[in-house]
């Protein structure tokens, strides 16, 4: 007998509705899955067989054929296990559905437990968009699934529970909550037009921090006023930032305070971040993620892990850092192709991945923060430890960060080593909450301007318009760019940073003082000429 059960898989960041057709026919006992299933899916046969037997049902000794439609779509993962098992029980007439159609999502264990899978949120959203609003989900992922509003969810812990549910006559409607937020910007590729909303009462909750569980407070960083100032400017304006300093100068510690300095995400951004986290298997999630992601991959990261891809078109670090910060410690140690791959996302805010027969675009609106030593030994310019790196080796080291990438980092901060005495005495440094308030106010000021973009993304005419330079300031720009033989791009960088400095001070126009301060954060390649001469 033939049975058809709707389910879903994950494809990139988007859920895809899959129709699971199960034919249980007379003939030699066998179990075949067709429809471009990957290895994990082929193994579903063993999981399903075990789960059915151990839950007290009979795995029919007949010829079982499972077809996954649409046939041309490559399917991966274990999210179809539950649907296949229920299909077999229906096809072998061990179960008769009492009420209308349920969609089923979940992985099975050999013992029959239903387990959560990555991407519950986008999968449930995809089903709802197709009008399949009654969905059986793993109990452990119920909270994440309930982020999607207007669906009737049935959380189950075992295959037996799912069977009981399908046999029962009572509805288990989940209360509808209002107001709602639209689930937008998700699943760009051929997703349905139906709107899906997220329950508003979930918006307040802060999900688990994606990485970096312990965020140090800024008050733990003593000294390094120049670097603290640079960090504040970069976060306030969404600028790329690089710390350059010897080991132990506090580059990494300072970068790790960033999650505590960023204002929480707004509704749309939070939803997009949550979808990415769900698809990346960070879940099950308890609610919307309000904290901007902070990703710090190790420098041995591969190209595919940075950009995304692989057999399942998984999102890479640039996408996982969407709406947040991508922190690259020891920048020159990263592979050259890995660093070059950052150029497109930095420019366009998204990354296009094309693989044979499949192409997709992932969001990647991250802010780049990097840290590096000034030379291979790390001690160039410091007094205590002598640097023995020949100039050519230093040049080769910094050249590993190519010009185009360097151009996309607006602020470069030198961090000299802080002497031990400064770590004990000195004034009490500001804490994260104070800085976070200033960052938020400055960001609001920028978004309130026509165009509504952070200064870090301003170029050309929009940038010049926003700066509102007077005569004196214009002259200063010319002087500063001549002083350093800046390219056109270098001058734009100067203006962008100066604009944010003015915004931090609450000034409508960019003045000479702002420009002077912005010039301090130019890249070291422009400074070395003066630094090395005597």
């Amino acid at each position: 007998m033939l049975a058809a059960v709707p389910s879903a898989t994950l494809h990139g960041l988007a859920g895809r509705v899959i129709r699971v057709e199960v034919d249980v026919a007379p003939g030699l006992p066998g179990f075949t899955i067709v429809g471009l299933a990957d290895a994990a899916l082929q193994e579903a046969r063993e999981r399903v067989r075990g789960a059915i037997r151990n839950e007290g049902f009979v795995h029919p000794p007949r010829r079982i054929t499972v077809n996954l439609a649409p046939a041309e779509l490559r399917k991966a993962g274990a999210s179809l296990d539950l649907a296949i098992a229920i299909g077999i029980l229906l096809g072998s007439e061990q179960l008769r559905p009492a009420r209308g159609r349920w969609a089923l999502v979940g992985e099975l264990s050999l013992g029959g437990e239903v387990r959560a899978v990555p991407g519950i949120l986008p999968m449930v959203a995809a089903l709802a968009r197709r009008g399949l609003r009654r969905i059986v989900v793993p109990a452990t992922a119920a909270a994440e699934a309930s982020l999607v509003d207007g669906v009737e969810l049935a959380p189950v812990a075992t295959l037996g529970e799912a069977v009981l549910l399908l046999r029962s006559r009572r509805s288990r409607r989940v209360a509808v909550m209002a107001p709602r937020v639209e689930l937008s910007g998700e699943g760009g590729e051929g997703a349905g037009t139906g709107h899906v909303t997220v329950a508003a009462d979930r918006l307040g909750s802060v999900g688990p921090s994606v990485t970096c569980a312990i965020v140090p407070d800024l008050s733990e960083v003593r000294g390094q006023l120049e670097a603290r100032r640079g960090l504040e400017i970069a976060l306030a304006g969404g600028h790329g930032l690089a710390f350059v300093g010897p080991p132990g100068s506090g580059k990494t510690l300072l970068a790790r305070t960033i999650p505590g300095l960023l204002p929480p995400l707004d509704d749309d951004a939070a939803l997009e971040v949550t979808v990415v986290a769900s698809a990346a298997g960070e879940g099950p999630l308890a609610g919307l993620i309000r904290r901007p992601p902070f990703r710090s991959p190790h420098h041995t990261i591969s190209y595919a892990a940075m950009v995304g891809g692989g057999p399942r078109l998984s999102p890479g670090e640039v996408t996982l850092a969407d709406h947040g910060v991508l922190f690259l410690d020891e920048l020159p140690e990263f592979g050259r192709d890995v660093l070059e791959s950052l150029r497109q996302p930095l420019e366009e805010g998204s990354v296009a991945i094309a693989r044979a027969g499949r192409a997709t675009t992932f969001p990647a609106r991250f802010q780049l923060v990097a840290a590096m030593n000034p030379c291979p030994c790390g001690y160039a310019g410091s007094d205590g430890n002598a640097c023995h790196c020949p100039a050519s080796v230093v040049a080769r080291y910094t050249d590993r960060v190519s010009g185009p990438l360097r151009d996309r980092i607006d602020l470069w901060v030198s961090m000299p080593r802080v002497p031990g005495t400064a770590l004990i005495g000195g004034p009490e440094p500001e804490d994260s909450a104070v800085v976070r308030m200033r960052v938020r106010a400055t960001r609001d000021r920028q978004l309130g301007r026509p165009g509504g973009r952070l200064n870090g993304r301003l170029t050309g005419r929009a940038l010049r318009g926003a700066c509102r330079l007077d005569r004196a300031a214009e002259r200063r720009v010319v002087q500063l760019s001549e002083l350093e033989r800046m390219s056109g791009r270098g001058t734009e960088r100067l203006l962008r940073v100066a604009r944010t400095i003015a915004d931090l001070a609450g000034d409508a126009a960019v003045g000479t003082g702002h420009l002077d301060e912005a010039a301090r954060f130019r890249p070291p390649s422009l400074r070395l000429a003066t630094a090395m001469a005597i």
Partner: protein
Amino acid sequence: MIGVGVPGSVSAPAPAAHRPASMERDAWAVLTSVRGLGPVGLAALLERYGSGVAILAAAAAPRGVDRLAETGREARQDGLRPRRPISPTLARSIAEATGRADRILARIRALGLDVVTVEEPEYPHRLAAVELPPHVLFVRGEIGALDPARVVAVVGTRRPTFTGRRIAARIAGSIAKAGATVVSGLAAGIDGAAHEATLQAGGTTVAVIGGGHARLYPKGHERLAEQIVARGGAVISELPPDDEPTIGTFPRRNRVISGLSDATVVVEAPARSGALITASWALEQGRECFLVPGSIVDPASAGCLSFLRENGGAARIVSGLPELLDDLGLVDHEAATAIASSASAEATLVDLGGTAERIGRALVAGYATVDELVAVTGLPVATVLAALTLLEGRGLAHDAYGRYRPGGALAMTEPGRAPQVQRP
């Protein structure tokens, strides 16, 4: 067949307009290009034949190779087996070089090189005074630059510390300002810093390289070499243009560096550094030798310290920049103008006014990082950063990896002898 190759050079354009072409000079250039013919062998040939032209003529003559190979044999009268300075193989090489003399000379001319032989008046008289001076110098740039009134060599390790580079630059800059020529080896590290600082101070500098001119090493210093030549200095080598620099050519080069100079100053040399060979040569050649001491735990100065210990009587210590200039017999222009510069620093500061003046005073007093500047002036970070750019724009402050130093009028005196300005 008489005088094969040599007359050809006479018809070619002279290498330098102000010096008449000389067949003898060309002959020496050709002989120097013979691989394996060193100063001893060439001296023996010259003793026998009297001139370079005669040697080439002899090599080109029938049975010339056999005749050349007899050089030095008849000199031994003591019955011992004579040691032959010219082996048959070497004699063949000489004959072969004679055959392509035109090409050798054309190559030298194409590279724009001048040739100076030890017999000519242009040959630097200090170098001529050492034992076995190079017979020929290949000169790129100004020949006159080799023989100025005062010459000081500044050399050191190829891998200096940051401080070492700064010291080398200060020493070279001061020597140049005092009017002396700075000689060094165009190597990476201390040598390069010395050349650069000399040029920056508007002085003349001479680079002695360890390979041929067409094999400049390190390649990254090609631009520096061009600047040295463009600013009235010279790059010289005792090796023919296409000789590779090897581990053996650098000690030979060092002997020329010390030989060209009245005194040699070594800034930073770890144990077994090549700069110490230069120092040894200086002492052997009867020149003065100064070493910049360092901390006893710093490996970058270990060579200097052990050299000072082993050559207690002869090698001298650099206890300070004015003291060094005094010992070198150079007028300390900076000390002479110290009072004036102190006044000019004060005037510059007053002229700046406002926050820039306060930051300027703090820099002169030795505060280096933004943290220190904020702490001592009490100004907000943003103001300090903006003021630093202002100072930097006027050349009054320099930034190196987040540490700031006074520059221009504010840096006229030594640290420790800060200009008499009011504290910030």
